[in-house]
């Protein structure tokens, strides 16, 4: 039971991070991950609120995240724009759109918003199973398929990938969309599984924590998943530290996951294992 609740606390970061492994392996950092998760949380909740069906909510969440990812992809792949600039802008867009729609639909009233959640048996819900299965699947896809080899080539040395007849931007788009799918699941998990509700800026930096965990997990799905469990553990302490009798301010416990994410980055430091062409736009020579 303890382990299942740990999985639950870890799931949003873990799902987003597993998707981000694919994205970064193809040579793109999805700085807009946070925004994709946020729109997924909101539109998942909104669809669930209006249809009373959490599965339709899940569908809406995934579509919302994919749309957001497509906007990001259009700018960083087709226009070869700077990934940090575009990511910051799409995150702000997500914050503005979800905040505006949330306030204009539900008002500023503090009444508790509650939507039906995705059903779970003994605390195990379908998204959690997808998450656990996705770890070996992503590993297999990256390491044991021709597609995965091509994707990794795009991340290491896009010119070579291009020269062997692969379209760099098409492969990157495919990885980004898969990453967007995972971001959708992660966002839906927040609003439709954990909270059954929505709050402004609900993701609260989890997308960035996921990016940090991809670095910490050395771009290997299994390690990244384990790293996300660490964050989940730090999150779970928020709800347990009082029962342990720790006399610390609760704000410190809320800050703990962010501190952990920062500390592990300090620990791993500069690494040579990152994809060679990470965050570099690719454009065919004329």
């Amino acid at each position, binding site marked *: 039971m303890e382990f299942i609740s740990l999985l639950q606390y870890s799931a949003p970061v873990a799902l987003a991070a597993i998707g981000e492994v694919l994205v970064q392996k193809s040579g793109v950092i999805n*700085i807009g991950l946070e925004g994709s998760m946020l729109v997924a949380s909101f539109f998942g909740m909104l669809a669930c609120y209006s249809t009373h069906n959490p599965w339709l909510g899940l569908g809406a969440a995934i579509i919302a995240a994919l749309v957001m990812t497509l*906007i990001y992809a259009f*700018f960083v792949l087709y*226009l*070869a*724009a*700077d990934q*940090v*600039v*575009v990511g*910051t*802008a*799409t995150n*702000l*867009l997500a*914050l*503005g*759109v979800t*905040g*505006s*729609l949330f*306030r*204009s639909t539900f*008002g*500023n009233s503090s009444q508790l918003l509650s939507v039906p959640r995705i059903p779970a048996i003994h605390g195990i819900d379908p998204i959690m199973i997808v998450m656990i299965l996705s770890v070996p699947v992503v590993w297999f896809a990256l390491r044991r398929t021709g597609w995965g080899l091509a994707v990794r080539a795009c991340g290491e040395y896009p010119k070579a990938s291009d020269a062997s007849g692969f379209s760099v931007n098409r492969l990157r788009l495919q990885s980004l969309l898969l990453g967007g799918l995972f971001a959708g699941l992660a966002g839906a998990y927040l609003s439709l599984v954990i909270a059954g509700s929505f709050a*402004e800026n609900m993701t*609260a*930096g989890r997308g*960035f*924590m996921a*990016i*940090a965990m991809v*670095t910490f997990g050395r771009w290997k799905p299994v390690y990244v998943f384990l790293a996300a469990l660490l964050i989940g553990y730090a999150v779970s302490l928020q709800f347990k530290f009082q029962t342990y009798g720790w006399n610390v*301010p609760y*704000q*410190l416990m*809320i*800050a703990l996951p*962010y*501190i952990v*994410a*920062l500390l592990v*980055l*300090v620990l791993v*430091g*500069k*690494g040579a294992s990152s994809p060679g062409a990470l965050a570099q736009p690719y454009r065919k020579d004329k």
Partner: protein
Amino acid sequence: MKWLRPLLFPVGLFVILVLTLVVFRLPVLDSLKLLVTGAAGDKFGWSRTAVKSTPLLLTGLGMVVAWRGGMYNIGGEGQFIVGGLFGAIVAKFLVFGSLHVPPFITIPLILIACVLGGAAWAWLAGWLYVRRGVEVVISTILLNFIAIQVLGYACSGPLQEMKKQVPLTDLLPDNAMLPKLSRQMDLHLGVVIAWVVAILVFFYLFRTRSGYRLRLVGENSNMARANRIQVDRTRLLAMCLSGSLCGLAGGIEYLGMAGQLGSGFSQQWGFLGIPVALLGGLHPLLCLGSAGIFGALFAGSEDLARFTQAGTTLVYVIQAMAVLGYVGIKAQLDRRPVVEPS
């Protein structure tokens, strides 16, 4: 066609504004009228615009310095908050302590503390990058969230007001705040300080050796290294300067407007400095314009509450679309280099 370029920004922004109003199903003409009267209808509107654009301008300048130096500082929010916190600590001792220090000493000291606080928080991220290779984008964002929690802790713990009833710091007396033009208006000295700082940043970046080195490191760090410029030290300097400006923004918000800190101290000002800097073309003087326009939007959007609860979040949408539009147009222009007739 070249003479059309300067018109692109205001026209594009206007189109985005109207589009946003249409998409969110607000009455376009009435909303625009409200926006304009709220931001520039009378002297109160102008003063609101100036006051709202001040933190935007200062954090925007902070982003300009960091990004020009090749450091993607997106932690303006955290630096703004830590700046405010340092200021509140100094205020706790000087203004509320048993020492009776006159305001003309406390105000500069508090502002200096804010600058140092912001610089320290940014230095941390810079140091992590230089020494441990932690990406600035990630570390500054994580530091933002940590700063928000530290602020929450400080306001309900060591810095809480003396009666210990609400999670806020002590409200500064009027004479310890930045002087105001008149009692009815918010317009305060901080607005002028921000303008002066913008000019100073311009001189620093484009008229001094240190500023030149900073820009060179941002443009091409290998070339800078080959010319015996100490790249790591310059990067740290860029971060510290950027943090100082964001901390100063926090200090001016504290001493000019808020007078006390609470969990809602920063309304995303640090984060919103990024669009201001980008749309100002990473140029300090152009940032005066972009900060003014967005400040006006924030000032005007308060009155939109008549039609919608959304208000300020709509401005986020407009800012984000403006940045995306700017990036898109710039990428298209880069793609097809304009051949000037010789």
